[in-house]
C-alpha cells in the first residue's frame, strides 16, 4: 500500500505492507524498521527502531487527528490508487462563513446585515454550558447575511452568518 500523506504543508510518500503481523515500511524511499500493536481501538503501540511510542487516533466527524505524546497532527492521507482526495483549501478571498463552534443557543446578534465589520469583531453570541461566547468575524468586510435569529438552537458547524 502506498500513501501520500501531508502534514503541516509537507508531503510524505509512505509505503506500508503488512503480512503475518509484520510491517515493512519505507518513508520517502527510506527503509524504516517498525513494529506495531493495536493496544485497543484507536491506540497503537509503535516501535520505530527501539524507540517506543503510544499513538492515538482521534476521530471527530470527518476529521482524523493523530496524537504523538501531547502533539496533535492533522494528516491528510491520500491513497493514489483511489480517487478520493480530500482537501480543505482555506480561502481568504470571497465570502467567509461564521459557524457555531459548538451546539448551543443564539442569545444575541451583535451586528446587523449590511454593516461593516473588522476582523475579530464579535458578530453573534452563542450560549452553551452556562458560557456566552462571541463568534467573531474571520475577516474585515461586510456582513452579507445573518442566517440565525436570537433564541435559535444551533448545532456545531451550523452557519450563523456570512461575511463578504
Amino acid at each position: 500500500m502506498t500513501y501520500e500523506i501531508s502534514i503541516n504543508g509537507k508531503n510524505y510518500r509512505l509505503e506500508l505492507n503488512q503480512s503475518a503481523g509484520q510491517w515493512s515500511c519505507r518513508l520517502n524511499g527510506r527503509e524504516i524498521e517498525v513494529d506495531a500493536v493495536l493496544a485497543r481501538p484507536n491506540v497503537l503501540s509503535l516501535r520505530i527502531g527501539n524507540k517506543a511510542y503510544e499513538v492515538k487516533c482521534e476521530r471527530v466527524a470527518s476529521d482524523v487527528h493523530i496524537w504523538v505524546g501531547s502533539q496533535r497532527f492533522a494528516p491528510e492521507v491520500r491513497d493514489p490508487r483511489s480517487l478520493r482526495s480530500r482537501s480543505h483549501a482555506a480561502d481568504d478571498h470571497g465570502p467567509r462563513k461564521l459557524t457555531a463552534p459548538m451546539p448551543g443557543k443564539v442569545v444575541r446578534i451583535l451586528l446587523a446585515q449590511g454593516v461593516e465589520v473588522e476582523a475579530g469583531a464579535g458578530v453573534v453570541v452563542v450560549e452553551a454550558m452556562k458560557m456566552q461566547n462571541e463568534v467573531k468575524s474571520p475577516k474585515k468586510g461586510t456582513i452579507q447575511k445573518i442566517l440565525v435569529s436570537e433564541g435559535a438552537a444551533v448545532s456545531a458547524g451550523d452557519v450563523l452568518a456570512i461575511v463578504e
Partner: protein
Amino acid sequence: MFKKILIANRGEIAVRVIRACHEMGIAAVAVYSDVDRAALHVRKADEAYPIGPAAASESYLNIQKILDVAARSGADAIHPGYGFLSENAKFARACAEAGVKFIGPTAAAMEAMGSKTRARQAMERAGVPFVPGTSRGLESFEQAQQVAEQIGYPVMLKAAAGGGGKGMRLVHAAGDLKSALDSARSEAERAFGDGEVYIEKAIINPRHIEVQVLADEHGNTVYLGERECSLQRRHQKVVEEAPSPIVDPDMRRRMGEVAVRVAQAAGYTNAGTVEFLVDQQKNFYFLEMNTRLQVEHPVTELITGLDLVHLQIRIAKGERLPFTQDDVKVRGHAIECRIYAEDPDDNYFPSPGKITLLLLPSGPGIRRDSGMYEGWTVPMDYDPLLAKLIGYGTDRDQAIGRLTRALSEYFVGGIKTNISLFRRILNHPDFRSAKIDTGFLDRMLKQTNEQPDSQADAEATEVAVIAAGMFATLGSAAAGVDERSATDGSTNTVESASNWKAAARREALR
C-alpha cells in the same frame, strides 16, 4: 447512621458523594435530567429517579421534584454537592420541613453568608479584616461615584448575590464607572435574579487563598489548612493547591483563627470555606464564605488525610468532630487541575460532544475524580467540568512532577479539553517558583507564541505519518466496532460476531 442519602447533583461531585456513601454502607439515590440518563452518577447509584428536562431550573434546581424523590425513595438525608441547590437556604429549610436532613449548614447560617453584603455586616462585628468599601448595596450611581473617590481607584464592583465572577467589574477610572455599574447590575439580575451590586477597593494582582473549616452541631469548629486558588480565568478557578506556597505555620494559624471566628459568628455547621484576598505584603482580607463543599476539596483531603464527605455525613448525623484542632496536621503537597470540556485553541469555547477515546492516568500520588467515561456524550446544558486530576507528593516539586506525568497519560478524544493548558501552567517558570497571583493565567495566555505543544518536531511528525498510514491500512478494525457503526451507520446485525472479527484482526497485528 443514615440508611439512604439522595444526591441532588450530577457529574463528578455526584459520583464523589455516591462513593463516600458506599464506603460508609449507605445506599445512594441519584436524580437525573432527561439528558443525563446515561451519566456516570446514574450508573454508580443504587437507585435513580428522573426529574425532568435538561434545563436545570426544571430539574436539578427544582426543590419540589427533589423532595418528591426523597419521599418516594425513603432517603433520610440529602447531599447537595456544589452549585445547583447547595447554597439555597430555601432548599435547606424545605428539607428540614420535610423531615430530611440537609447535609450542610442551616438555612439561617446560609442566609447570613449568602448575601455578601449581609455577611460583611456580621463579620465586621466579629472583627474580621475587610477590603475597604461599602458593606451595603449601592443605591445610586452618585453614591458609587462618591465611595469610589473616597477609597480610590481602581475599584471592584460585585454582585451581592454573586459567585463565579458573574456581575463583577474592575473599574480603573471614574469615566468607566457608569457603564460598568450598569452592566454589572444587569448581569447580576440575569444570573441571580438580584441586581444588588456593591463596591470595594480593587487589590491588584492579589492571591486568592481560602481556608477550609469544619463545624459540628455541638459548637466545635476547626480549620483544615488553606488552599491556594490564585490560578483563575474569568474569575473561575483552574488550578488549586494546598498548602499555599506563601503561607507559613504562623500565617496559617492566624488565617485559620479568623476563619473559625467567621464561621462561629454565623452559627455555622458542617463543611464551609472562608475565602481571603492576600496582598503582596501578605495582608489577608475576608472575601466571602462559601457554604458548601468546594470543587477543590480533594487537595485538602490529601494533605490532611481526612475525608471531608465522610465528615460532612457524620456531622449531619449529629456526631461530634472526632478530632481537635491540635490533631490536624498538614503533610505533603497536593495540586488539582480542573479538566473542562473547552477548546484552548479557540478561546476556551465550551466543547460538548461524544468522548470517543479515553485513556486514564494512574500510579503513585494520583487521584482522579471524574464524571465521564468513554462513549458518553457530554451534554451542552451544564457546567463544562468533566473531571479533576489531583497530584500529591511529599513536597510541591514532587506533586508537580507527578501531575505532569499523569497529564501526559491522560487522553480525552472526541471533544476538546483544557489538558494542554495545564502542561503550560505546570512548566511555567513562575508557577514552578510559586510566583502566582490572580493575574498569572491571563498574563501567561497572552504570551501566545511560545507554545512548545504546537511546534511539531521532526521526529514526532514522522511517527505521525507512519501511524496515519497504519490506521488507514487497518481501517475500521482499528477504530473499534462501536465507532464504525456509529459513524457510517451501517447495520451490523451480528454485533458479537463482528467483535470477534475485530479481535481476530487485532491478534493478527501482533
